[in-house]
């Protein structure tokens, strides 16, 4: 229809111009980034004359002589009006740049199972378009959402290539069930298992890494129950809808490329040899030792003074900077090409990309190759077929990180007096040579592991390959006006294969190495049927109805193969698969399914009163018949006050209020948690030659959904003709029956049980502001969002804090405190007289006793405020964009500090330890040095000093991204003209303001499971910091 009108208008303009006018005005309509805007409407003098811009954004309008008023408009952009005077026969050029309309009342927003005009939206939805997503170069697209939407906390993971992010929408509402939002790509709830390989190599699998950000058209984040209610049982933690690009009328191409390099955003400050030996000697003497201190790897405490002295002097001759040996400069480059083509009855989008993202960790990179084809076809005016298909492969060249090795070793067990390579000959007891000068110097860590970060990196082969294909096909039928029946089928295939080859040089145990392959593949398919009907009830009211059903099934499989005595990795030698010494372990498949029925009704009155109700019934295989189905309703309303006839538009140009209530759920728990199980008959275990039968897991037939009831209210305001727009929202989300994998007393016969136990409150306020501070030739726009969330674990039943733990991260469930609270011994100060640590018991009394039963809440990792601010400056063809993100009020538990800044052990230490007590009267941060953990009250043999001393303020302000761009609107003419060319230079993580003394206040460490992921935000354990990346890029369309 619009196309027809445009054509007629163009034709009329042409006829008019040929016949009546000799004056012409031409130009290009561009968006705020300088990109051409095809389809923009240019109307002269209030609608008397009008044309549409072509695919290059060009327009030409013939007008009469004299003064004219031209208006330039496009859906979702602020209308621009210009006055122009044309003399007889004059041809003038007028280029116009349209800015995104902050209110965008007629813009279309993707919602669950459909779209909606923004004006009609009654739920809380944040929309982020492709430009924001591709503006920041990140290891994975979701990291680019950081700072873009109020109430959406995005914490980027470590500096390891391909690492994922932790996203929380309006706080944490789960404990043991996964607390991540639901990701839906083109209608398919995709596989989002972060733990296919646990935390192998101190890294969790990132299920979003293979998604090409250049394929994304927009991302909608559904936050409140009105928005997420249509996803029912899976909406409690928010929903992220990802819509990929589709074809457009005409033919156009897009190409983008960038190249850059990265280094660590911060560096660890480890001691050098002289410092370490000095402190170790001091600790030895503090403990009453005489002579030279014994040195790990060289001597032991029982060795003679002469041996210790010789070893000490030998150690002083080496000073290895292991950090420097493990980090370098990461090189990265990517290329993306997309083509769009559209005709009368079809649209096509095809895109390919290649991305090679090398991290600053030597030997670590993530390569992604992807392709996408999205096609729409309308064989009849009542039928439309839509197909979306993507294939991608991610190849992660892995290294050991954090606790697994590499930089983690450099920050812990790699002592500076260990050389990288031997300088002497090493003999076995029998006189044979076991090491020559130039060989790697291998040392043992405290657990007996053979170590040397350089040797391991250079000798070990470790590649994780992920093949992913996400596909969807839909048939949309329109049997009658305003009725749309849509049938969709989707298939998401994920295959993650990890290949490891450990050479003999690492293990010193045989002439050959060992090779392992761990493979997991997930088949996830769904289909849905929806019927969508819209009707006008009266002249002033309309009703929209949606009804549908959906089925989704996910099957996960896995196997592992191990080979001993081989010379290389399996992928280099597939014939290994045929040899006899392979040990294959096939994991049992894990399956689950959802069967759902849902409906939505939207009632609109006078185009300013909006009401919506949604209801969804979900059935899940994860629950037994007692609680298999859950019902999740929501109600919401919106009122565009500024559309009231009595509303006088002055300073206040726009006002909308909305509110909602709804119930959503979470069912992201292991597939078979509800079952009581016994060992299989062929379990292979015998006692005295007789088979045995034994229980594995207790049953809980009453296991049921987590349920969140959310109340949400917001006000949207536009000021000064929407030059400043703002939205403030309040929500209160009470999550009940929260699932906990409770650690049960062993006397019950089991150690764990899945149960609905907890109640969690998330309450918060969100504010977002967009202000066009300066307009005209020099433009300055500020976008700010800030969110405050209060999180409290209201109840955990009759359990104690230790009932659920965040793995090794010392976080526990504490009634009255947030999820993710650190539960540690409270450190008070260093006693000035003795130099010993003074603790506080729960009653607040000072004590020298370190007593685990006196652990208490010492802080939590959840921030009070998070947000982001983007300032964009434009002048002529230049633009400068600065994105700053911030977090305030969270604590970080620097878990590795308990070894780096505690008892002097076989770990290297950080330079902060220099501020230690040395003599009576000293006021110091750290107590007297000791080699004996009992000095600090710890049990002997356990130098893991878990105290609040290592809980730090994690507030930060980070210049997340700074991009300078220059846009050339067009180059050349004709068919091969470049319509838009933009070059940019970008810096990511240029600086961070923080008082956190560790590496990075924004951290997502490797987690052991979903529970750990919920409970241990802001815990760092030798976690590599994020990278600082410098990138040059080019984007063009033609």
């Amino acid at each position, binding site marked *: 229809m619009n196309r027809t009108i445009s054509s007629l208008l163009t034709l009329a303009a042409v006829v008019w111009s040929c016949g009546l006018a000799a004056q012409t005005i031409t130009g290009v309509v561009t968006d705020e980034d300088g990109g051409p805007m095809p389809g923009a409407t240019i109307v002269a003098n209030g609608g008397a004359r009008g044309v549409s811009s072509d695919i290059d954004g060009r327009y030409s309008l013939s007008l009469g002589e004299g003064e004219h008023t031209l208006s330039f408009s496009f859906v979702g952009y602020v209308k621009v009006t210009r006055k122009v005077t044309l003399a007889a026969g004059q041809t003038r050029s007028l280029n116009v740049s349209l800015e995104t309309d902050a209110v965008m009342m007629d813009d279309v927003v993707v919602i669950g199972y459909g779209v909606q005009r923004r004006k009609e939206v009654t739920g809380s939805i944040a929309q982020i378009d492709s430009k924001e997503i591709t503006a920041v170069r990140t290891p994975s697209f979701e990291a680019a959402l950081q700072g873009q939407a109020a109430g959406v906390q995005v914490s980027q993971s470590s500096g390891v290539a391909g690492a994922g992010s932790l996203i929380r929408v309006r706080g944490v509402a789960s404990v043991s069930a996964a607390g991540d939002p639901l990701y839906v790509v083109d209608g398919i709830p995709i596989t989002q298992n972060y733990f296919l390989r646990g935390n192998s190599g101190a890294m969790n699998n990132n299920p979003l890494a293979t998604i090409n950000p250049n394929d994304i058209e927009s991302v909608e984040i559904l936050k409140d129950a009105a928005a997420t209610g249509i996803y029912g049982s899976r909406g409690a933690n928010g929903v992220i809808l990802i819509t990929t690009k589709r074809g457009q009328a005409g033919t156009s191409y897009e190409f983008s490329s960038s190249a850059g390099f990265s280094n660590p955003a911060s560096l660890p400050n480890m001691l050098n040899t002289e410092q370490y030996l000095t402190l170790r000697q001091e600790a030895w003497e503090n403990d009453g030792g005489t002579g030279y201190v014994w040195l790990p790897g060289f001597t032991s405490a029982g060795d003679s003074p002469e041996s210790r002295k010789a070893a000490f002097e030998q150690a002083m001759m080496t000073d290895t900077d292991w950090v420097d040996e493990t980090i370098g400069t990461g090189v990265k480059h990517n290329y993306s090409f997309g083509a769009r083509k559209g005709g009368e009855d079809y649209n096509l989008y095809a895109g390919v990309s290649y991305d090679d993202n090398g991290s600053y960790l030597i030997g670590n990179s993530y390569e992604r190759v992807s392709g996408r084809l999205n096609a729409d076809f309308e064989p009849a005016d009542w039928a439309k077929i839509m197909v979306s298909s993507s294939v991608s492969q991610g190849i992660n060249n892995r290294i050991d990180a954090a606790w697994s090795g590499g930089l983690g070793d450099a920050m812990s067990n790699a002592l500076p007096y260990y050389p990288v390579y031997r300088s002497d000959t090493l003999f076995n007891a029998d006189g044979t040579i076991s090491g020559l000068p130039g060989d790697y110097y291998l040392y043992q860590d405290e657990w007996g592991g053979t170590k040397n970060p350089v040797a391991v990196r250079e000798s070990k082969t470790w590649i994780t390959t992920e093949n992913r294909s996400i596909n969807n096909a839909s048939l949309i039928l329109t049997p009658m006006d305003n009725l749309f029946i849509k049938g969709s089928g989707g298939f998401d295939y994920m295959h993650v294969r990890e290949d490891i080859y450990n050479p003999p040089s690492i293990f010193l145990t045989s002439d050959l190495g060992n090779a392992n392959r761990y493979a997991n593949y997930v088949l996830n398919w769904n289909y849905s049927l929806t019927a969508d009907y819209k009707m006008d009830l009266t002249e002033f009211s309309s009703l929209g109805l949606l009804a549908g059903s959906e089925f989704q099934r996910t099957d996960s499989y896995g196997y592992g193969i191990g080979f001993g005595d081989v010379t290389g990795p399996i992928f280099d030698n597939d014939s290994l698969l045929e040899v006899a010494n392979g040990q294959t372990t096939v994991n049992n498949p894990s399956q689950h399914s959802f069967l759902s029925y849902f409906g939505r009704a939207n009632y609109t009155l006078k185009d300013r009163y909006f009401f919506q109700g949604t209801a969804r019934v979900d059935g899940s295989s994860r629950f037994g018949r007692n609680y298999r189905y859950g019902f999740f309703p929501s109600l919401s309303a919106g009122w565009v006050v500024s559309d009231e006839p009595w509303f006088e538009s002055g300073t206040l140009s726009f006002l909308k209020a909305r509110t909602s209530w709804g119930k959503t759920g979470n069912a992201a728990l292991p597939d078979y948690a509800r079952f009581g199980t016994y060992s299989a008959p062929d379990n292979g275990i015998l006692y005295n030659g007789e088979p045995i039968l034994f229980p594995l897991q207790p049953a809980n037939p009453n296991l049921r959904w987590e349920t969140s009831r959310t109340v949400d209210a917001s006000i949207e305001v536009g000021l000064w003709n929407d030059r400043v727009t703002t939205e403030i929202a309040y929500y209160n989300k009470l999550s009940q029956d929260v699932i906990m994998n409770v650690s049960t007393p062993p006397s019950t*016969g089991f150690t764990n049980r899945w149960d609905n136990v907890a109640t969690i409150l998330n309450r918060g306020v969100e504010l977002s502001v967009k202000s066009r501070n300066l307009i005209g030739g020099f433009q300055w726009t500020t976008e700010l969002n800030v969110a405050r969330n209060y999180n409290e674990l209201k109840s955990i039943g009759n359990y104690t804090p230790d009932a659920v733990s965040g793995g090794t991260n010392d976080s526990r469930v504490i009634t009255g405190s947030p999820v993710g609270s650190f539960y540690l011994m409270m450190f008070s100060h260093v006693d000035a007289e003795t130099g010993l640590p003074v603790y506080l018991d729960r009653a607040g009394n000072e004590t020298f006793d370190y007593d685990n039963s006196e652990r208490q809440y010492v802080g939590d990792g959840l921030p009070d405020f998070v947000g982001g601010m983007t300032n964009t400056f434009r002048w002529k063809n230049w633009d400068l964009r600065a994105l700053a993100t911030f977090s305030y009020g969270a604590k970080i538990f620097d878990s590795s500090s308990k070894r780096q800044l505690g008892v002097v052990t076989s770990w290297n230490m950080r330079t902060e330890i220099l501020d230690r007590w040395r003599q009576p009267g000293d006021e110091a941060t750290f107590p007297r040095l000791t080699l004996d953990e009992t000095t600090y009250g710890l049990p002997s043999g356990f130098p893991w000093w878990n105290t609040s001393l290592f809980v730090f303020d994690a507030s930060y302000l980070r210049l997340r991204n700074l991009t300078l761009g220059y846009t050339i609107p067009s180059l050349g003419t004709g068919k091969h003209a470049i319509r838009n060319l933009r070059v940019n230079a970008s810096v990511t993580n240029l600086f961070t303001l923080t008082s956190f003394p560790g590496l990075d206040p924004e951290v997502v460490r490797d987690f052991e499971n979903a529970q750990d992921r919920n409970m241990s935000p802001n815990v760092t354990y030798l976690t590599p910091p994020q990278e600082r990346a410098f990138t040059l890029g080019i984007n063009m369309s033609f």
Partner: protein
Amino acid sequence: MLTKMNSLRLLGCFVGCTLVLSSCDRMLEFEPGDVILAEDAINNSDDLQRMLNSNYDVLANVLNGRQQSIAELLTGNMARPYSSLDYTAVWNRETNFFTPTTGGLYTDFYYAIYRANVVVESFGLVDDLDDATRVRLEAESRFVRAVCHWYLVKMWAYPYGYTADNGHLGIPLRTDAVAPPSPRASVAEVYAQIIEDLEFAKSNLPNENGPYASSMAASGFLAHIHFLRQDWNAAQTEAERVINSGLFQLDDDLDRYEAGSDSTLAGDNINPETVFGITGGYFAVDGDSLLNDRSSAFRDNFRQDNNANPQLTFSGGINDLFQLNAADDRGNWVESNGVVHKVTRFDDKQFFNVPVIHLTGLHLLRAMAIATNGGNLATAIGDVNAIRDRAFGADLNDLPAGVDADAVLTAAREEYRKETLCEGWEMDQVKLRGVMGEPETVRGAPWDCPGSLLQFPNSSTTAAGFVLNDEGGCL
């Protein structure tokens, strides 16, 4: 647009498809693979028997040296462990609720108790159970339950007699499978249940039952239990029932840990003086795969012939004890360089049976009971000399007839300590002597310092109200 009729058909199809979806509740039925659902697990008496076998399986996994090693570390028999942090914590008597080794041991005992209770409570689920089998299954299950409760209460609570009424805190007492988490019962309650269970087993099991629970095995345990309760008569009675049964004979040599061999079921090679023990240790037929390894903690902790730095070694005190008389063949169990006193008792053994209740122990137990209780000293002297003859050679180091009770008691205690080295029984002796008021210390700390009790694992406290042991105070 479609015609009205076609539109209606399409709508009908939509409704139909939706209804088809809605009729498929079975699409939501997935069951875990390679396991049995609990409701399908126990259907007949074979299932109950296999469940009972799993009780023994757990027992075998805790009495394979794990329990014994930890108990030994709480006494003066052992030197500081070589490197194990957990064992060091036990040796220092400073375990806490994060000490995984002791927590794991505690947990495993309750696994067995739970399974025993499941067997007893599942008789109604099967219909092919005859009365004799039912009674046997119950008796064996209660035997296992009692034994596990006893080991737990010995290590996690102050001993019987520590308070006059034994009302001090014991351990959670579990006599049914489905009850909610239990608080700690008193030691008196725990012992009463243990004795009741063992009496049931004693009355309802055959005297011999291969490597499984038997009436004699129940008596053997009862002898030890009554001994710790200072019920000397009952201890003597139960010990004599076993000794006099004629079913067991003292071994001719000092090695009660009989090794298995290729394809040889250890059950076929039980030491003649074993009243109750753990069987295990044989290779699969192809000789490559190790099956039924039930001696790993002994082997891995103590062996020194294949390990330059064994985890557990004898204390200097034990070495000194053997130095007193070079004729004692048990001195060969120590390989000392003057600083480290390694254990040779398990050298050259890879997989072997583990005697738990044995005739040597019962002889010496009877001797101690008699010597303490004023009974027939000749019997007690005979018991001691039977052991000494084997260790020193016949009549080379015998107790002379006519020695007084104190001398018999001293000798019996010394022999008991030597004979049961690495078996964990010395812990009972230390606590008993302490309860009896003797000045007992371990490495300079009072025998009942708080850390002498193992700390309960953290998971035991996850249900509110559980009382932990005090910690520390032993260093």
